[in-house]
C-alpha cells in the first residue's frame, strides 16, 4: 500500500510504510549529525512512523493533550480593520492568544508610528477577552546603510574589513535595543498583554544579542508581563562571531542553548525554529526537528512554543500548506517533544 504523504515543498507523494520509516530514521540521523544531539528513542521513532503512515486527512493529539497556540501576527489585514482581524481569530478561529502587528514587522519601523499602534492596541483591549500581544522583529539589518545609519557589514565582510563589520553590528545592537524597549514600553502603557520578539537572530548573533538585551531591560521593569521570543532559524549564525551573553558565545547556538539564554534574560515563552528542507519529505523534516529540539524541551524552565509554520517545524514551505501535513507535523512535535504550545 502506498500512503499519500508530503514533501517539504508541500507536493504530494506516495510511500510505503517501510519507506516512511526510512525517512524518519534518516531525519533523526540528520538531526544527530548536524546538531550533535542524541537520537530520538525507539518509542518516539515508532510514533512518528505511525503518524505519517496514516491515510487520515487530519491528525491530532489525544483529547486532553491540547497545547496553547500563539502566533507571529494574526489576520491578513486585507478585510476590515486590524482589530477585526484580532476578533476573527478570537471568535471564529478560536486561538488562545492573538497578536497585533504592523505591516512592516520591524521594531525600527514601528517606533515612529507608535502612538497609532498604541491607539489600536487600546481599542483591541477593550473589545477582546483573550490575551492580545504585540509583535515585531529585531531586524538588525534595518540599521545598516542605505536604510539605516550604521555601516553595512554585509558589504564590509566580503572586503575583509572584519573589525569595521563587527563595530557596525555592535552599534546596531545598541540602537535596536533602544527601539525594542521603546515599543515594548509603549505597548505596556497601552494595555498589551505582552510583547513578541519574533524571528530573533535573523541577522545573526548580533540580532540575537539585541533581543536578549532588550528582554532583560523589559523584564527588569515588568516582572510579570508577557515576553515571547521566537527564533529565526535553528542555528545562530556568527555574522560577528565573538559576541557573548552572560559569558556564552552566541554564534553556533542550537535551540537548547538559545532557550537557556532566553530564560536567563527573562523571557516568558521561547519559540525554537528548525528550518524545512524542501527536497526532503515532511516525515524526514519532522523527525529532524524533533531530534534537534528534544534537548531544548527536556531542559526547559519556561514554556516552549515551537515555531510551526510555513517552512519551519516540519510544516511545508508553501503559502497554502496542506492541512494533512500541518496537522501531522504539529501533532508529532507536540507528542514527541511534550511542547507547551505552538
Amino acid at each position, binding site marked *: 500500500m502506498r500512503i499519500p504523504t508530503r514533501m517539504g515543498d508541500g507536493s504530494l507523494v506516495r510511500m510505503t510504510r517501510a519507506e516512511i520509516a526510512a525517512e524518519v530514521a534518516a531525519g533523526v540521523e540528520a538531526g544527530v549529525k548536524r546538531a550533535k544531539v542524541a537520537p530520538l528513542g525507539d518509542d518516539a521513532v515508532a510514533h512518528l512512523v505511525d503518524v505519517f503512515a496514516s491515510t487520515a486527512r487530519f491528525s491530532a493529539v489525544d*483529547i*486532553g493533550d*491540547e*497545547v*496553547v*497556540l*500563539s502566533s507571529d501576527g494574526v489576520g491578513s489585514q486585507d478585510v476590515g480593520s486590524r482589530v477585526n482581524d484580532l476578533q476573527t481569530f*478570537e*471568535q471564529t*478561529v*478560536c*486561538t*488562545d*492568544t492573538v497578536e497585533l502587528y504592523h505591516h512592516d514587522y520591524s521594531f525600527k519601523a514601528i517606533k515612529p508610528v507608535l502612538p497609532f499602534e498604541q491607539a489600536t492596541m487600546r481599542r483591541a*483591549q*477593550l*473589545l*477582546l*477577552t*483573550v*490575551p492580545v*500581544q504585540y509583535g515585531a522583529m529585531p531586524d538588525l539589518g534595518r540599521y545598516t546603510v542605505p536604510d539605516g545609519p550604521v555601516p553595512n557589514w554585509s558589504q564590509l565582510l566580503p572586503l575583509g574589513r572584519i573589525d569595521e563589520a563587527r563595530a557596525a553590528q555592535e552599534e546596531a545592537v545598541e540602537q535596536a535595543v533602544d527601539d525594542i524597549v521603546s515599543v515594548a514600553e509603549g505597548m*505596556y502603557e497601552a*494595555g*498589551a*498583554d*505582552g510583547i513578541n520578539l519574533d524571528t530573533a537572530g535573523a541577522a545573526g548573533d548580533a540580532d540575537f544579542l539585541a533581543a536578549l538585551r532588550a528582554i532583560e531591560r523589559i523584564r527588569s521593569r515588568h516582572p*510579570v*508581563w*508577557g515576553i*515571547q521570543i521566537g527564533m529565526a532559524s535553528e542555528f545562530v549564525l556568527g555574522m560577528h562571531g565573538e559576541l557573548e551573553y552572560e559569558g556564552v558565545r552566541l554564534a553556533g547556538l542550537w535551540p537548547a542553548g538559545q532557550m537557556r539564554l532566553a530564560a536567563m534574560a527573562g523571557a*516568558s*515563552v521561547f519559540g525554537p525554529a528548525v528550518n524545512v528542507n524542501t527536497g526532503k519529505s515532511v516525515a524526514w523534516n519532522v523527525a529532524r526537528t524533533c531530534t534537534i529540539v528534544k534537548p531544548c524541551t527536556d531542559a*526547559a*524552565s*519556561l*514554556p*516552549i512554543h515551537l515555531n510551526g509554520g510555513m517552512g519551519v517545524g516540519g510544516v511545508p514551505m508553501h503559502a497554502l500548506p496542506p492541512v494533512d501535513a500541518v496537522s501531522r507535523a504539529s501533532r508529532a512535535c507536540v507528542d514527541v517533544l*511534550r*511542547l*507547551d*504550545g505552538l
Partner: protein
Amino acid sequence: MGGLRTAGDLVARMQMTRRMRLPEAKAYVAERLGVTPADLSDPVAMAEVRRARGLGTLPTEDTATVDDALAIEAKLNIARVLDVPVRSVERLRALGRG
C-alpha cells in the same frame, strides 16, 4: 486549546505572566476553576464554568446574553479568579477612577 471556546486563553495567561510550563499552567487554572485539567479543553464543560464565573465567551446571541461578562468586563473577573495581573484591567481601574 480552543481559546474562548474552552480555557485556552486562561492557560495562556499563566504561561505569559508566570512562565508556567503547560502541565503546571493547566493544573493551576483547573484548581482555580474547580475543574480537572482535562475539562479545560472541553467546550461543553467550560461553557458553564465560564458563564458562572463571568470569564467571557463568544459574543454571539447563541452563546451570550446581556447578563454575561464579555471582553474587558470578563477580564476583570479573569484577573480576580486567576489572581493574575491583566494590564488592560489595571488601566481600566486607573483611568476609570471608579
